[in-house]
């Protein structure tokens, strides 16, 4: 469906309607929907919609194998997954917010704030569980403030979360005294170093968050209502949903993901710092959109977002393996992003 990748591009709704590629009402809809089992169908739907992205990933892998000997090693693939884990967790939250019709620019700095708060000397003195609790609480509280201002204060999400980005940054600097706070707790530090069956704990954590997110989004009333509220808030309201409370809850979900990510980055870098998570907001939103979620809400898949994250991480990994300069990296990265979206849009148009 072209509208998934093209969203608000003006002219396009019209062009789409006139031109090719719009899946019509009596179209393959029925065929596509008559999958195997309902569960399998839902999951495949997530991938199926994103066949283009899978192709892009495959393409990147081919380039990787061709240009770098070490690309296809287990160690390197695990490196990619580990690099993806933190922004991936944040992207799960961002997917909820965007499907629900909002946007969250504060994710990166909310994570930084949570990482700082969880690694102050005082917090660390209480041990790892309190640190984890602290990170989650700070993330959730930040998300709650966002959510309340947006849902009940009726301020546009862009402004609220931008303000939160700025304030959280300031607060993190204030609390940390602008220093990187070292993680002394061995349990937290161990998260990044421990491997189970050869796979880093961080990757399991990432997988767990994605799994929980997927179930909540696709198998619970909460998830279902998220689609409804993002797709048509007025209809959702008139159907008796508490749109405001739900909207607020979405930002709490995003904040919680930031809390989880905060623990992960504290462990990975062995520090809590106000410099963590810079520009994560754009990365997360870009991954969600590339993954096929409509920026205007109501439509999207979590699998797509995660594939989007993997595309970005793989690009970076390829660059590092080939030891490219940052400037060349950047020039190429922009081009690859556009190419990836074009490939994906084409793939979508091809499959009804």
């Amino acid at each position, binding site marked *: 469906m072209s509208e998934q990748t093209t969203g608000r591009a003006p002219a396009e709704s019209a062009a789409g309607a006139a031109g090719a590629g719009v899946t019509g009402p009596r179209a393959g809809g029925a065929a596509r929907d008559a999958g195997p089992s309902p569960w399998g169908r839902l999951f495949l739907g997530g991938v199926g919609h994103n066949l283009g992205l899978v192709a892009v990933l495959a393409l990147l892998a081919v380039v990787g194998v061709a240009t770098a000997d070490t690309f296809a090693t287990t160690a390197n693939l695990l*490196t990619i997954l580990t690099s993806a884990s933190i922004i991936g967790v944040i992207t799960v939250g961002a997917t909820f917010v965007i499907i629900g019709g909002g946007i969250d620019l504060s994710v990166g700095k909310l994570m930084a704030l949570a990482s700082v708060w969880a690694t102050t000397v005082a917090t660390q003195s209480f041990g790892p569980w309190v640190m984890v609790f602290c990170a989650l609480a700070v993330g959730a509280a930040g998300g709650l403030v966002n959510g309340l201002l947006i849902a009940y204060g009726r301020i546009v999400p862009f402004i609220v979360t931008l303000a939160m980005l700025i304030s959280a940054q300031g607060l993190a*600097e204030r609390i940390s005294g*602008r220093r*990187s706070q*070292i993680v002394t707790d061995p349990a937290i530090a161990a998260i990044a170093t421990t491997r189970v069956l050869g796979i880093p704990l961080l990757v399991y954590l990432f997988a767990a968050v994605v799994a929980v997110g997927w179930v909540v989004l696709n198998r619970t009333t909460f998830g279902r209502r998220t689609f409804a509220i993002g797709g048509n808030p007025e209809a959702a309201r008139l159907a008796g949903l508490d749109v405001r409370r739900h909207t607020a809850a979405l930002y709490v979900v995003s904040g919680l993901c930031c809390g989880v990510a905060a623990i992960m980055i504290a462990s990975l870098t*062995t520090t809590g*710092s106000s410099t963590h998570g810079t520009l994560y907001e754009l990365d997360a939103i870009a991954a969600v959109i590339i993954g096929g979620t409509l920026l205007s809400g109501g439509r999207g898949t979590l699998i797509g977002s995660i594939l989007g994250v993997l595309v970005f991480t793989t690009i970076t*990994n390829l660059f*590092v393996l080939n030891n490219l300069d940052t400037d060349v990296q950047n020039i190429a990265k922009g081009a690859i992003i556009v190419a990836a979206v074009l490939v994906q849009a084409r793939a979508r148009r091809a499959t009804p």
Partner: protein
Amino acid sequence: TSNAAPAPGGGATAAAGGDNAEPGKPVTIGFSCPAADHGWIAAIAANARNQAGLYPDVTFEAVNPTTDIAQQIAAVDTLITKEVSALVILPNDGSQLTALGRKATDAGIPVINLDRVFDSPLAYRTWIGGDNYGMGVAAGTHIGEQLKAKGVGNPVIGEIAGIDNLPLTQARSKGFADALSSYGYSVGPRQAADFTAQGGQRVAANLLQAAPRLDALWNHDDDQGIGVLAAIQQAGRGEFLMVGGAGSANAMRAIKADNTVLKATVTYSPSMASSAVALARLVAQNRGMGDLVEKEVPTSLTLASATITKDNVDTYLPLGFES
């Protein structure tokens, strides 16, 4: 101007003394530094490469610079996997790369920690870097002397720092305040910019409004100093004395020309990268420093911050880096 092709290494390569110039066993030196659009960082990377080029026995393996901690970790990891003979690392953030320094050290790879220091001495073999506190002291001392000589009582002294988040900025400010206090002076308006010309201009333009009269101004960084100087010119101000920081060629030329408020700069020379590569070679080859009696390279070297004025600028011009 910067538009001239950058002088190789700003001429900042060590003249090898003693027998250290003699080729030793072939070694591979890995190098990683941040990517910043900043003359100083650019000079660091160039100096390291040029210094390595002087040694026939050194293979130089630089990973691409990055601003992203995770990327730097990944990049250095590849160097460790390649089992280079020594590593020269200028981390984006010392604390955040400490674990990695430990990892390399544990793997038997000596680490030369450049400038931004790791949290644990176990993470590096030798640290070499500038003296941020000393830089502040030098600037404060110069300003103190000048104002005292002029007999200014109760002077208004401004400070435009770099990125406040960095420990190096905090150290510089502390040194500056400490030095001034020994003259009985204190810092008046102080604002942080961001090491960019744009940030320098913005902060300076506003700060000049906050202080209708200034006696002296210390700007931490000559790169952002371009913007600071522009703002001063645009405001038509000139009643005060300005001191720069780091020692860019551009700033030195301005000092030499003596037609702006910039009368001095205190160095924080990127030549340290050349020295770091030289040290890495010696460590990897198990040699000491030629002029020292010790058989080993010392574990830490702090470079002195010099004050460059019109009088001695010619001596330093070859070390100046292009913005």
